[in-house]
């Protein structure tokens, strides 16, 4: 397989075919919680992209240069990755607070939430530890490949959460059955969106 094509497949697979929210159901809490307004969704999407990319980079280095050479990866990867993410989020929060107060005001409230955002841990684990990825291509990612994968996942998250917020804002004022108001309706929207994303299945043999 040609090198560029391989990157393209990894990216597309992470973004559309195995979309993290609608096909794999990871990180539904922010989808339900934050997506009531388009503006907050954009903030969340940006913060996730940022944290996810950094988390995968650090986890990749930790896995390939520390855990794997010491043969402790198999039973230490969970605590190590989650601590990396927690520390990273804290660090990023402090850094942004100092360096760019407007950005902090925009992203600030979402940053602590991201620690428990399963998408970050999922992307890091899949991109770094072999054996979790269901995509039909790679078994072990190199660092650039892991990064392309992570960016694909994060953009997939962003696209869906923003589209979702747009639909929800519109439906806020429409008449729906009482029992379905709020969360149930949001899940119905998610079902229909997920139906649309299923159309991408088996695209390019992934």
């Amino acid at each position, binding site marked *: 397989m040609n090198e560029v094509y391989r990157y393209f497949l990894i990216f597309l697979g992470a973004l559309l075919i195995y979309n993290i929210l609608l096909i794999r159901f*990871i990180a*539904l809490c922010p989808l339900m919680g934050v997506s009531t307004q388009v503006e907050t969704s954009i903030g969340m999407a940006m913060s996730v992209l940022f944290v996810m990319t950094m988390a995968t980079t650090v986890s990749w280095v930790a896995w390939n240069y520390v855990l794997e050479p010491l043969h402790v990866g198999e*039973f230490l990867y969970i*605590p190590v990755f989650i601590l990396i993410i927690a520390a990273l989020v804290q660090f990023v929060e402090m850094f942004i607070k100092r360096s760019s107060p407007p950005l902090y005001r925009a992203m600030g409230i979402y940053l602590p939430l991201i620690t428990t955002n399963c998408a970050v841990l999922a992307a890091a684990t899949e991109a770094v530890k072999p054996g979790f990825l269901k995509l039909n291509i790679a078994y072990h990612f190199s660092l650039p490949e892991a990064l392309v994968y992570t960016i694909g996942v994060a953009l997939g998250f962003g696209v869906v959460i923003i589209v979702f917020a747009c639909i929800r804002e519109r439906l806020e004022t429409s008449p729906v059955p009482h*029992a379905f108001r709020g*969360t149930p309706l949001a899940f119905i929207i998610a079902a229909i969106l997920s139906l649309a994303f299923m159309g991408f299945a088996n695209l390019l043999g992934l």
Partner: protein
Amino acid sequence: MNEETTGWQEFKKGLILENPLMVLMVGLCAVLAISTRVENGIFMGLSATFVLVFSNIIIASIRKWIPDQIRIPIFIVVIASFVTIVDLSLKAYFPPVYERLGVWIPLIVVNCIILARAEGYAYRNPVWHSFMDGLGMGAGYTVVLLVMSIIRELLGTGQIVLFDKTIISLGPFNPPAIFILFPGAFLTFACLVALLNRYKMRKKK
């Protein structure tokens, strides 16, 4: 009120009143993703309950020595240790199940229910109550997970297969596969929540 009745109340609270999935709406991701088979539901429910109960016990017993500022990392380390135990045991004893549950096992660490119970309950309550609370929350989680997976497997495949044995079969008909596909998870859950809402509204009137 003696010790035992309050313990029972803690248990019941997680099962019904404060059911983590239907009422608090946290930790949904895993439920939607793996409820395609009853077998998955059982293993996932048991794993989450195990982690909940033991992390609650440990955190409740060391809560007096945990400094307030770094409590979250400590909780996460405790939880992660128990998740690792589950991860390795499933991998060793039930490889096919481990294969299907995949990334969801490590993701128990970030399952909001467990951290929420550690922070909101076990950190402030004695060991016995935390134990019952963990058991109740785990049971509530497992029950919803089982209901979801029974509906989805029965409607989506027309039968329920448990440990390679067919338990219930609906006979020869063409099952609507959408229920075990991705949209089915959202649809089933939406209908369950709507039903619960309707029940609550009736009760209010």
